[in-house]
């Protein structure tokens, strides 16, 4: 049975967690990274995989309520198992099918190996085990890693990276087939949190950080905080924002945007905020204000009006001069006389690697291809799956 990570973008990168592999979520202490392992488990629970969750520092009831907080009703799944190391640790009897006394290495080993034999996926809080059972417990953990190699199961470790001795860190690194780093971003403003694949030995991938936020309920959502939609007057920016967004508002008067358009979009696991700018020159001061902290730009041009292209380039330069990735939406393709994307490229003197997507925002055609293309630039194209039509880039 195929087991996946259940984490947006990550699934497209690593495809699956193959049998016999160990995946570690390497978590900065400031981040609620445990949710990653919980999401991986619940995703596979829903796909009828047999899953087990090892708990040591929290009681089984607390574990279930943590899952519930994210909208994951694990208690209703017969294929969900808790491996209770907590009860014996605090001196209580356990009601769980699998339980052991964490201070008794042999007992823990026996139970864990039984669980590995009977489950497709086992989540283990390795840093908690090391904290409670001491450094010597890594030998025990190493045995599970060896044991799983020829079994039809996988281990998912959560490792909260407190300042452990290098020996322990190296041990985790060596024994993990894949490591996903979960950390915080501090750069002038708090952009949020990120995750990225540091290592994976079953696929050849380019490492890339993905921003995320936690949604309750919902779990891990990849997050692109701000995408700017700009372009000359009457190019169709507002129409574009409305065409792709689930909800959107515009500050427009007498048919033109006087402040901004705002649209929100949940798409491919990304939670995206689009900001449309006014197009007329008298509003240019607004451009710089709205453009601050944007992560990418969509430049909308009217393909029937090449005379507006110089203005489009000027606007692009005023918002994207920090090397922000950008995509050009060659809009109004539904109108006669619309230039094809390659003509737009030529007339705008744009480099070959800039994606130019034919769009009819009015009819909603091509608008998601634009988003796909920009997401591709932002995430290194890694998430694009085979069934995607390639953009014209």
């Amino acid at each position, binding site marked *: 049975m195929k087991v996946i990570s259940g984490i947006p973008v990550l699934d497209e990168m690593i495809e699956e967690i193959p049998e016999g592999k160990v995946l570690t979520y390497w978590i900065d202490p400031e981040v609620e990274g445990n949710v990653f392992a919980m999401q991986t488990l619940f995703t596979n629970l829903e796909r009828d995989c047999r899953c087990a969750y090892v708990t040591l520092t929290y009681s089984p009831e607390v574990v279930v309520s943590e899952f519930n907080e994210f909208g994951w009703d694990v208690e209703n799944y017969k294929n969900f198992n808790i491996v209770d190391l907590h009860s014996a640790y605090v001196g209580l009897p356990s009601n769980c099918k699998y339980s052991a006394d964490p201070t008794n290495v042999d007992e823990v080993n026996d139970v864990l190996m039984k669980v590995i034999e009977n489950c497709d996926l086992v989540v283990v809080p390795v840093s908690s085990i090391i904290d409670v059972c001491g450094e010597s417990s890594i030998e025990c953990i190493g045995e599970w890693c060896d044991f799983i190699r020829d079994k039809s199961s996988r281990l998912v470790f959560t490792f909260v990276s407190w300042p452990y001795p290098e020996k322990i860190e190296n041990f985790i690194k060596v024994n993990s087939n894949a490591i996903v780093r979960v950390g915080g971003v501090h750069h002038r403003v708090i952009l949020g949190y990120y995750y990225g694949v540091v290592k994976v030995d079953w696929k050849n991938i380019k490492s890339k950080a993905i921003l995320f936020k936690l949604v309750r309920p919902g779990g891990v959502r990849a997050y692109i905080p701000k995408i700017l939609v700009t372009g000359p007057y009457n190019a169709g920016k507002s129409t574009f924002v409305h065409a792709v967004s689930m909800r959107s508002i515009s*500050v*427009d*008067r007498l*048919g033109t945007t006087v402040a901004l358009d705002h649209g929100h979009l949940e798409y491919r696991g990304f939670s995206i905020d689009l900001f449309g700018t006014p197009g007329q020159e008298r509003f240019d001061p*607004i451009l710089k204000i709205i453009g601050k902290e944007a992560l990418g730009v969509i430049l909308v041009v009217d393909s029937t009006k090449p005379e507006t292209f110089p203005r489009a380039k000027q606007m692009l330069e005023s918002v994207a001069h920090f090397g922000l990735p950008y995509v050009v939406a060659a809009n109004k393709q539904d109108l006669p006389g619309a230039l094809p994307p390659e003509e737009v490229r030529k007339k705008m003197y744009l480099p070959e690697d800039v994606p130019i997507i034919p769009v009819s925002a009015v009819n909603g055609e091509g608008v998601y291809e634009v988003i796909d293309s920009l997401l591709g630039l932002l995430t290194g194209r890694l998430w694009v799956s085979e069934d995607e039509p390639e953009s014209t880039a």
Partner: protein
Amino acid sequence: MSLRAQLEDILKELKSTGDIEASAIVSRDGLLIAADISSSVNADAFAAMSATMLGAAETAMSELGKGMPDRVVAESSSGKIVATGAGERALLVVMTTPKANLGLILLQLGKASKKVEMLLG
């Protein structure tokens, strides 16, 4: 009397209230219709930003279910800007001295805005 002259008269009358340094009638999409502004100010930008300010405030407030704001007031140590709607197509904006008596100005602004609305519809 031309429409333009009538609009300029409204601004002149407004100025006689005192403490008003500049005023303008601006279309909702940010174009200058009539102005009483010294040449040191970029009137076009002032007009556009007034439309932005009022438009954004109106949208923010109505999105929150609080209806339309009567006006937007921006204050700094060197003066105040007050923008108010003047019908569907235009808005009225004044720039005052820092110590201006807002009560009187708001009253006069309200009257002026009604007159502009009558003229521009």
